[in-house]
C-alpha cells in the first residue's frame, strides 16, 4: 500500500514539469513560438549535451559554486559571531545599531560598482557581493533566534549558576539553532542569486558569465539553459541544507 502511494506522489510531482515541456515543444513544432523568442526544449537539450561533452558546463557550474560557498561561509561565520555578540552585549548592540540598520536595506547588487573600484574585477569583488547578500538574512535570524529563547530557560540556568560560556554553548546556540538554520537557508539562496548577478557584470567563467555570453552571441538557447541550470542548482543547494538542518536540529 505504501509503495503505491509514493508512486502516485512521484507521478503528481513530475506531471506539471513534463506537461510544460510537452506543450512547449508542441508550440515550437507548430510554429507558435520562434527559435529566437523561445527556443524549443529539444534545442535546449542539444545545447545541454554539447556543453556537457565539452565540459564547459561543469567548469562554469564549479566556478559559480566555489564563489558561492566562499562568500556564504564567510558571511555565515561573520553573521553568527556578530549576531551572538550583539545579543549578549547591550552596549555593543546600541553602538552598532545605526550602521547595521542603514546597511541592511542596500541591495547586494548596489554594491557592485564600489566592489569593482575597491577590489577590481577579479574574484574578491564577486566574493564581496555574495558576502553582502548572504550576511543580513543570516544575521537577522541569528539575533532573532537568540532573542526568542524562552526566558524560562534563562531562569533555569540562573538557578543552576551556569557559567556564561557553558550557557552560550548549551542553551543559547541550540535554542537559536532552528532560527539560525532557516537564516542560513535564506542566506544561501540570496548568495546564489548574487553570484549570478555579479558574474553577469564582470567575469570569465561561471553560470552568470555563460548567460551573458549566450546573450552577446545571440544564443537564446544558451541563455535559457543557463537560467534553468541556475534554478536547478539553487534548488539542490536548498535541498542539501534542508537535510543538514534535519540532522542538526534533531529535536
Amino acid at each position, binding site marked *: 500500500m505504501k509503495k503505491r502511494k509514493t508512486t502516485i506522489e512521484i507521478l503528481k510531482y513530475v506531471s506539471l514539469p513534463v506537461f510544460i515541456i510537452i506543450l512547449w515543444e508542441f508550440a515550437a513544432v507548430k510554429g507558435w513560438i520562434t527559435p529566437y523568442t523561445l527556443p524549443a526544449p529539444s534545442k535546449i537539450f542539444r545545447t545541454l549535451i554539447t556543453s556537457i561533452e565539452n565540459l564547459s558546463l561543469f567548469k562554469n557550474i564549479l566556478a559559480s559554486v566555489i564563489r558561492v560557498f566562499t562568500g556564504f561561509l564567510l558571511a555565515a561565520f561573520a553573521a553568527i559571531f556578530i549576531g551572538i555578540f550583539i545579543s549578549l552585549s547591550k552596549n555593543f548592540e546600541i553602538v552598532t545599531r545605526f550602521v547595521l540598520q542603514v546597511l541592511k536595506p542596500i541591495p547586494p547588487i548596489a554594491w557592485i560598482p564600489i566592489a569593482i573600484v575597491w577590489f577590481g574585477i577579479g574574484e574578491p569583488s564577486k566574493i564581496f557581493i555574495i558576502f553582502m547578500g548572504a550576511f543580513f538574512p543570516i544575521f537577522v535570524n541569528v539575533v532573532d533566534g537568540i532573542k526568542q529563547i524562552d526566558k*524560562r*530557560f534563562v*531562569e*533555569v540556568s*540562573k*538557578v*543552576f*549558576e*551556569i557559567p556564561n560560556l*557553558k550557557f552560550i554553548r*548549551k*542553551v543559547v546556540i*541550540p*535554542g537559536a*539553532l532552528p532560527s539560525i538554520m532557516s537564516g542560513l537557508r535564506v542566506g544561501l539562496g540570496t548568495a546564489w542569486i548574487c553570484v549570478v548577478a555579479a558574474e553577469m557584470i564582470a567575469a570569465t567563467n561561471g553560470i552568470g558569465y555563460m548567460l551573458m555570453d549566450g546573450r552577446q552571441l545571440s544564443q537564446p538557447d544558451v541563455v535559457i539553459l543557463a537560467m534553468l541550470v541556475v534554478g536547478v542548482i539553487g534548488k539542490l543547494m536548498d535541498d542539501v541544507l534542508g537535510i543538514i538542518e534535519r540532522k542538526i536540529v*534533531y*529535536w
Partner: protein
Amino acid sequence: MSGKLEINNLNKYFGDKSRKLGVLNDINLEIHEGEFVTILGKSGCGKSTLLRIIAGLETNYEGTVLLDGELIKKPSLDKGIVFQDHRLFPWLTVEENIGYGVPDKQKNKNDLVQDFIELVGLKNFEKSLPSQLSGGMAQRTAIARALVNKPKVLLLDEPFGALDAMTRINMQEEILKIWKREKTTIVLVTHDIEEAVYLGDRAVVLSSRPGKIKEICNVDISRPRDRVSDQFVLKKRKIYYDFFDEVEVPFTYAI
C-alpha cells in the same frame, strides 16, 4: 543547620506604593530543617510569587528572607526549584538534562546522575529526549535535575498541576519517597487541598489578593497517611471551610 528558611514581614506590591496593588501582605513564616511544608491557595493568590522570592528569582519586595541565616538575594544551587512546566531543554537527553546543573569538574558525575535517574524511576530512559517522555516522566526528570546538586531546600511550584489525577497521586508518592531518602527541606505550592494535607508536615493557607497567611495547619498525622481516614478527612474539611468562607458561599439547597 541546613535548610532553615525564615521569612520576615514580607510585603510585595505591583506598581508603586501609592497604588498599592498588594500581592503579598505581611508574610511571616519559619520553615524548619528537613520539614515538608505545603503552601495552599487559589490561583493568583501570590503563592507562586512567594516561592519565586524564596528562590531568589524575584527581588523587588519589602522584608527579609533568610536561608540558614543568610539573606537570599539571587538564585543559587542551594535552592533547587521545579516549575509547573518542566523546562527541560528539548535538545538534551534525560541524563544530559539532569547533568546540566552539575559542575563539570564534579567527580563521578555520571554515577551521580545515574543514581538520581534510578531514584525517580527513569532507568532505561537515560538517552530519551523530552519530546519522547510523558508529562509525568518529564516532571520526574525536572525533579531529579533539581535534586542532583543536593540543594538545602527544594521548591516546587505546582509541579503536578499539569498531570492527570492518577499520575498526580503517583508523583505525590514519589516525592515523599525522595524526601524520605534525601531529607531535604521541601516547600511545595499547590491549589489542591488534598495534596497540601497529604504531603505537608504543615500546610500554609494563603488568602487571595493580597496573599496573606490565613492559617497554618499543623498536619500531625503519622505517615504513611490514609487519604480516607477520619483524621485526614477532618483536616481537609477544616481547611475547606476556611477556604470557602471568604468566597460567596456556594448555594445550598434546603430540602
